[in-house]
């Protein structure tokens, strides 16, 4: 059982990561990651929707007939998104202004419907919940990393404005790395977004390959001994 949970966790966070492995949800991934803070906010909002939608869908999966499966899921997801949208608008207005349209667009985040189809409609509630959470956290991590890289190289800060967007509790995150940095605009502009994702993807691939090679080496050693 534990192994299964570990597997779901590993899938969500790394090996089947929404952005770096499945290559889904690319729009928010690129659009809101000019800073790590934005990425974090977007990631958490998406995680909330992903978690809830997985739970709800896995609990109603037996009732739904195949013909209207997709519309029903979409309606459910849209409701959740609207809820998040309203809550952010009411209680995290600054963040809401920054993320803007992309909160509403969580509805069409292919990853959410994808998880609903691929996982929640086939698995039990607990598993689905964990899957939603891990996929969401994997997504959040990806956004934070992308945002962080863009922010560090773009303006030499990290989690700038976290207190404004996420609340004063998050101000500990804020960092200024180089005090009077000229700014490297490319990173903050659209081309920089694409480029950072491309470079990170390559980095992940190299790391996966290294790990596989090491595993192989280890296996070979075991075989020898």
């Amino acid at each position, binding site marked *: 059982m534990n192994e299964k949970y570990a597997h779901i966790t590993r899938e969500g966070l790394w090996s089947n990561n929404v952005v770096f492995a499945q290559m889904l949800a690319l729009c928010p991934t690129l659009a809101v990651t000019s800073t790590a803070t934005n990425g974090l906010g977007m990631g958490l909002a998406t995680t909330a929707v992903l978690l809830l939608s997985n739970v709800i869908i896995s609990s109603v999966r037996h009732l739904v007939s195949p*013909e*209207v499966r997709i*519309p029903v899921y979409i*309606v459910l997801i849209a409701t959740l998104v609207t809820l998040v949208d309203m809550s952010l608008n009411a209680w995290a207005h600054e963040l809401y202004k920054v993320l803007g349209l992309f909160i509403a667009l969580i509805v069409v985040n292919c990853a959410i419907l994808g998880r609903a189809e691929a996982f929640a409609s086939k698995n039990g509630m607990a598993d689905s919940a964990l899957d939603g959470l891990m996929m969401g956290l994997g997504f959040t991590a990806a956004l934070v990393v992308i945002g962080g890289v863009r922010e560090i190289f773009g303006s030499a800060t990290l989690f700038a404005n976290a207190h404004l967007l996420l609340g004063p509790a998050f101000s500990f995150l804020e960092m200024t790395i180089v005090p009077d940095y000229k700014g490297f605009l490319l990173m903050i502009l659209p081309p920089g977004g694409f480029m950072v994702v491309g470079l990170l993807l390559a980095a992940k691939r190299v790391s996966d390959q290294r790990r596989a090679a090491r595993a192989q080496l280890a296996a070979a050693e075991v075989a020898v001994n």
Partner: protein
Amino acid sequence: MLFAVVSLTILGTSFGLLLGVAARYLKVEGNPLAAEIEQLLPGSQCGQCGFPGCTGAAQALAEGSAPVTLCPPGGRAVVQALAAKLGIEADLSGVEEKGPMIAEVKEEICIGCTRCFKVCPTDAIMGAAQQIHVVFREACTACGKCEAVCPTESIKLQPIPVTLQSWHWHKPLVGESV
């Protein structure tokens, strides 16, 4: 509040009905893909793919539950044809072209047991009980079934020798060497 509930319910109900109707009346029958795929397979029904013959393999391919690299006798050509049909990119790295092979009988030790004769899916083996068997080059697909059943190991797969007719230029080796 009331408006909201009523209008959205109506919207939902009508779309649901519409889709239900559509699904029922606009249904398209059958999956012709499996049949098309079967056309591409070698058809020797040898079972090396792990499916009960090419039909099973085609079914699995059409469902997407088998890789396009499943058929060893087909070699690269079949992999590419399948990949093109299914619109996917084939990873050819794992497909090793063994080079053409053929079964050959060592006449000295063939005891004419007819076991190979019975298993050959393409009737490539000639002979009768208690007689030495021979293999037709043109018909043998190198499936190896005969090799597996032969009690005296007298039937073996051998590479087909290269002739002037079958020789061709190898692929040029270019690029900086590491």
